[in-house]
């Protein structure tokens, strides 16, 4: 298929997945902000639950360019509505719809209508509506819309190459996000020693699990108190948890094997390597290395893989005397909205 079309499909699903993840993250933040927590020590402002989303998305610099303080109102506006923030839910939905629009002949009309409708509704929504209906209600709606779009895609689209690029985008974005959310435990949730096992600690962990819809799974799998080791195992190594790193890499590796067919491309090799580390990894190794270090390494790997996918499929540069490759390359950089490295 056309490389540009593949690129748009890939980013369409990444943008939708990102909108969903942002909603999940903000919802958890909101819930956690309702918990009583200790007065922050000086220099520990980042430990404010409302600062979490900035750490996770790596958007702190952009935020502080606009606001001086972290407040719930500012954060919600910045991450939900701000059209100048390419990672806001508003921008993600807009970009997904723009991506869909430029490949509307490649996706089914149900998919386009669903996304177009989502965009029209998002455009009509404003902050006061969210406040009056309830913040959680809105995040629930965003999540549901994302589920719905995946469902429409799953239920209507031909299982062709385009479908594979859509799935690839979803899992690349999801893997990235789950790793970032987990890493937050290192940054912020890390309680002082006395609080380990305490009520606040418990709520923080359960909120984190809920944000990736894994709370019930945890209880089913472990029937035990929540411990960092087990959460890491659940969200990194278990491949039966749909948002875990292992589950995402299963999909990514499988898709790339399909897409590479018989040709040997770096993207497939790299995906295989990342996959093998999860497939054959042990929890103890993760903690020996350090959870944060482990997750950083993974995020770097995912980012490299993204570059290889670009090179091999989405923005190929052919060697030809007359073919100008720069036009396509320029377009790529503008559609690669808001994927910022962790700060």
């Amino acid at each position, binding site marked *: 298929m056309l*490389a540009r*079309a593949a690129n748009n499909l890939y980013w369409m699903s990444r943008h939708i997945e990102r909108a969903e993840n942002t909603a999940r993250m903000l919802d958890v933040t909101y819930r956690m902000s309702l918990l009583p927590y200790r007065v922050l020590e000086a220099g520990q402002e980042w430990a404010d639950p409302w600062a979490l989303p900035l750490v996770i998305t790596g958007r702190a610099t952009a935020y502080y360019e606009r606001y001086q303080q972290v407040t719930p109102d500012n954060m919600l506006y910045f991450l939900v509505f701000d059209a100048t923030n390419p990672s806001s839910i508003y921008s993600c939905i807009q970009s997904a719809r723009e991506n869909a629009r430029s490949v509307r002949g490649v996706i089914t009309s149900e998919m386009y209508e669903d996304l177009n409708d989502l965009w029209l509704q998002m455009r009509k929504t404003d902050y006061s509506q969210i406040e009056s209906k309830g913040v959680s209600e809105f995040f629930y709606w965003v999540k549901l819309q994302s589920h719905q779009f995946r469902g429409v895609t799953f239920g209507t689209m031909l299982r062709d190459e385009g479908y594979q690029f859509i799935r690839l985008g979803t899992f690349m974005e999801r893997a990235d996000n789950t790793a970032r959310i987990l890493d937050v435990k290192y940054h912020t949730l890390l309680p002082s020693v006395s609080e380990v096992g305490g009520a606040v600690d418990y709520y923080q962990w359960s909120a984190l699990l809920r944000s990736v819809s894994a709370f019930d799974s945890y209880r089913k799998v472990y029937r035990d108190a929540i411990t960092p080791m087990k959460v890491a195992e659940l969200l990194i190594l278990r491949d039966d948890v749909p948002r875990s790193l292992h589950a995402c890499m299963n999909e990514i590796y499988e898709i790339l094997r399909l897409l590479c067919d018989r040709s040997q491309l770096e993207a497939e090799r790299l995906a295989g390597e990342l996959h093998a580390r999860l497939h054959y990894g042990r929890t103890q190794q993760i903690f020996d290395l350090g959870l944060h270090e482990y997750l950083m390494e993974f995020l770097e790997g995912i980012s490299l893989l993204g570059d290889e996918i670009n090179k091999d499929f989405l923005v190929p540069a052919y060697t030809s005397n007359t073919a100008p490759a720069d036009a396509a390359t320029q377009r790529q950089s503008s559609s690669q909205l808001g994927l910022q490295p962790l700060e």
Partner: protein
Amino acid sequence: MTITRSPTTFGTGATLNQSSTNDALRHHPVSLTWFNEMYDDGAAPREHYAAYAEWLASKPLEFMLQKQKEADALYARHGITFAVYGDETGVERSIPFDIIPRILRPGAWKKLSDGCCQRVRALNAFLKDIYHGQEIIKAGIIPAQQVLGNNLFRPEMRGIAVPNDVYIHVAGIDLIKVGHDTFYVLEDNLRTPSGVSYMLENRNMMMRLFPDLFARVAVAPIDHYANVLLDNLRAVAPSGISNPTVVVLTPGSYNSAYFEHAFLAQQMGVELVEGPDLFVADNMVHMRTTHGPQRVDVIYRRVDDDFLDPLAFRRDSMLGVPGLFAVYRAGRVTLANAIGTGVADDKSTYIYVPDMVRFYLGEEPILQNVPTYRLGERDDLKYVLAHLPELVVKEVQGSGGYGMLVGPAASKIDIETYRARILGHPASFIAQPTLALSTCPTFVDSGIAPRHVDLRPYVLSGKSVTLVPGALTRVALREGSLVVNSSQGGGTKDTWVLEG
């Protein structure tokens, strides 16, 4: 349901100066009253509208109102939009769709369809001729200056052979109806005519809104349009290609007709490409795919000539493909429509089309032109300047209803401003009488009221010259307005050709 039948209070209509020296006008007297396509003068439905009128009468106004709302919502949701140039507020808008169909009798359609095909065959022969032997100029039928001095004439195309001698793969012929079976051709669109997606989507919408209607009225189907188009495009592939790759080339998602480009590509099951998706290597055009370069044989391009190839035409074009023209000239890729068709649909060439029909086909034209004044001619200019309030004046190379003067609807100031423009360069303008465009009942705020309509059927060539039994009907939604362009507040209707 009651039908508002308020007489149109619009201006003086088509008053003609009988002392005019213009022969064409004397031979084509124009009716002074608007022809209502659905109802006769006694307010009874015409025969071919009877079944629909009976159905409509059984429906309460609220029902229709509900359906109209439903249609509007569906169009917004489908994202069936057009962009308006020069409008900063709305990047995209839905084009207004009117739920009352326009119905054509089978007999009337037969004549129209034959007439349009005849016209396109003649225009195509004209293009082949002017880019080769120029017999029509030698025969003294069209002045050389008219062709060679026209800036839409492409000298680069001289001597280039195109597959099957087809230049005009897709033509949109704009017609108006002024009497029972009297149609006039208003203009030919031979470059990249748009609107066919609305013809097709309007039918889908009607079938979705009123499925029972289609059981009552035998409407000829049109949804094979994309198949016919694809068949024709495949038939004009460069020689020696057995299984040609066809693509649709769009300027991109910000183009006003982008929806249509995507729609047609999808309906034909071919790739929708933008300029940067294509590149030239080894004297072939390729597209960039996820599996490497793939050769492209036929390009249904919706990019204007000027922007197709920065190496051959406008250097600043970002929409085109460098080197495309060289490959085209070598016959290794086909462009549809061909380069250089604009010279044949120019409004100053339009008046020669009946002569082309006689010259190339040896036939009498089935469809008439609207009588037209050429302002480059002294007598015509004099007459037009004396009668501006009655006439419609257009720029020869304008399109989309931009920059035209509708005399009866214009203020004194508008007219004087326009007069100054004409005097600046008279030869850039033509004028036509304000014609009594027919009206069709249309759903508007006040209920159902007559509004003016035109008709654009799409003629396809490649294998053969044909058209599907349908057309785009555009309707001027504002009361009294004669301008049907979507950029000027026009809407569309589903157009039914009855199976006869």
